């Protein structure tokens, strides 16, 4: 049986933990709102870009010499995985879900005889993967998951991936990120970026009767400029969703922690009161039996 003093100290410490977790929850809620607004604001660009790509792809259908970003290198021997995690923890299963998913994917690809390379984004994923697959990591991007998350973060990452592709370092590039369903659930989702599956986009082509597009300077040049930009935009969208998901996950985790702390305080207070009562009863019995003996 813990002494009253120990119990008091425990209660005090759980109370301050609860204060911290509930403050973190509030902060995460505010950041979540901002992250969601950002993700919302970035959507029109991605939509317009997809429309233009679809238009271009349909205009170029049948022509060969498609850029590597669209058609791939022709092989699928070397896979580049880009897991997106956060720089900070205390977000429930947010990062470990991505890490587990990445690990499974690596094992599966390796079992199929593919070569796997990793370019982790975010400290949590980089640290986890460095323990097991340090020889597979080609580069790492850390410290971009802050509240600002400018587009340049995504464009730098995109440039890095393109230069790796140009150098023939990989054939297939897949991002693994947390898709933001709602505050409670973020789903680890793989998204293949290179080669780009434009089939869906071309199929979504609205009406074939529309007047023929003119292109300036020409289709090939436009496509070569659009594709890297599209890669950056897709990465940006994934990073924004991941950022919103991180805050959502943290909010949920901290909500649970606050509730658990509340329960722990109730339980400890009850034990404390019982123990105190028992001590008083004991003392009374001792006094009374002492008085009787006299």
């Amino acid at each position, binding site marked *: 049986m813990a002494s009253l003093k120990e119990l008091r100290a425990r209660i005090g410490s759980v109370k301050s933990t609860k204060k911290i977790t509930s403050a973190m929850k509030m902060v995460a809620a505010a950041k979540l709102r901002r992250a969601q607004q*950002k993700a919302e*604001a*970035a959507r*029109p*660009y991605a939509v*317009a*870009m997809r*429309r*233009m790509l679809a*238009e*271009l792809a349909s205009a170029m259908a049948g022509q060969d010499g498609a850029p590597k970003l669209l058609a791939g290198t022709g092989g699928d021997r070397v896979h580049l995985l880009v897991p997106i995690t956060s720089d900070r923890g205390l977000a429930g299963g947010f990062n470990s879900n991505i890490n587990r998913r990445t690990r499974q994917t690596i094992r599966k690809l390796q079992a199929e005889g593919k070569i796997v390379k990793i370019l982790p984004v975010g400290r949590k994923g980089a640290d986890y993967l460095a323990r097991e697959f340090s020889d597979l990591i080609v580069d790492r991007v850390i410290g971009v998951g802050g509240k600002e998350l*400018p*587009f340049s973060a*995504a464009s730098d990452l995109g440039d890095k991936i393109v230069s790796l592709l140009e150098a023939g370092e990989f054939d297939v590039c897949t991002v693994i990120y947390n898709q933001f369903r709602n505050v409670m659930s973020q789903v680890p989702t793989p998204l293949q970026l290179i080669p780009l599956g434009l089939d869906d986009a071309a199929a979504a082509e609205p009406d074939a009767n*529309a*007047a*023929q*597009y*003119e*292109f*300036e*300077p020409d289709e090939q*040049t*436009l496509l070569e*400029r*659009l594709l890297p*930009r599209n890669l*950056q*935009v897709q990465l*940006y969208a994934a990073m924004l969703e991941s950022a919103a998901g991180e805050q959502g996950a943290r909010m949920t985790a901290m909500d649970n922690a606050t509730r658990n702390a509340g329960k722990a305080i109730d339980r400890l207070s009850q034990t404390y009161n019982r123990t105190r009562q028992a001590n008083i009863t004991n003392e009374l019995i001792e006094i009374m039996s002492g008085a009787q003996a006299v």
Partner: protein
Amino acid sequence: MPIKVEIISPEKVLVSRDVDMAVIPGEEGDIAAMPEHAPMMLLLRGGTVSLYEGETVTDRYFVAGGFADMTPTRCTILADQAVPVTEISIDSATARLEELTEAWDAADKSDVTRLDGLMAKIQSVRAEIEAGLPPE
């Protein structure tokens, strides 16, 4: 009959409204987006987009390169970066120009793709400074 112009940067939508004409800095020369213009897709250089209502320019935005998608009823400008001309910071643009000029001097003169990229950036920043200067 107006045309719907949208200027979108990767981060947000800057403009989405109906105007009579929009003059866009195409890579091969300025081009005016008007209602009933044939569908067209073009590369942009760094320069200003001017929005016209009637004969007067109501708004001017600086875009640092990007793409434009014109159809008879709308004109979507995907800008790499976009700012209203009134908000251009000459100081920051001048600083960037200096950085780029240094990069140009330091660059390997045989690496043509890098030189091309740098030159496009330098011209874009020069256009930004020009656009940001107050009218005489």
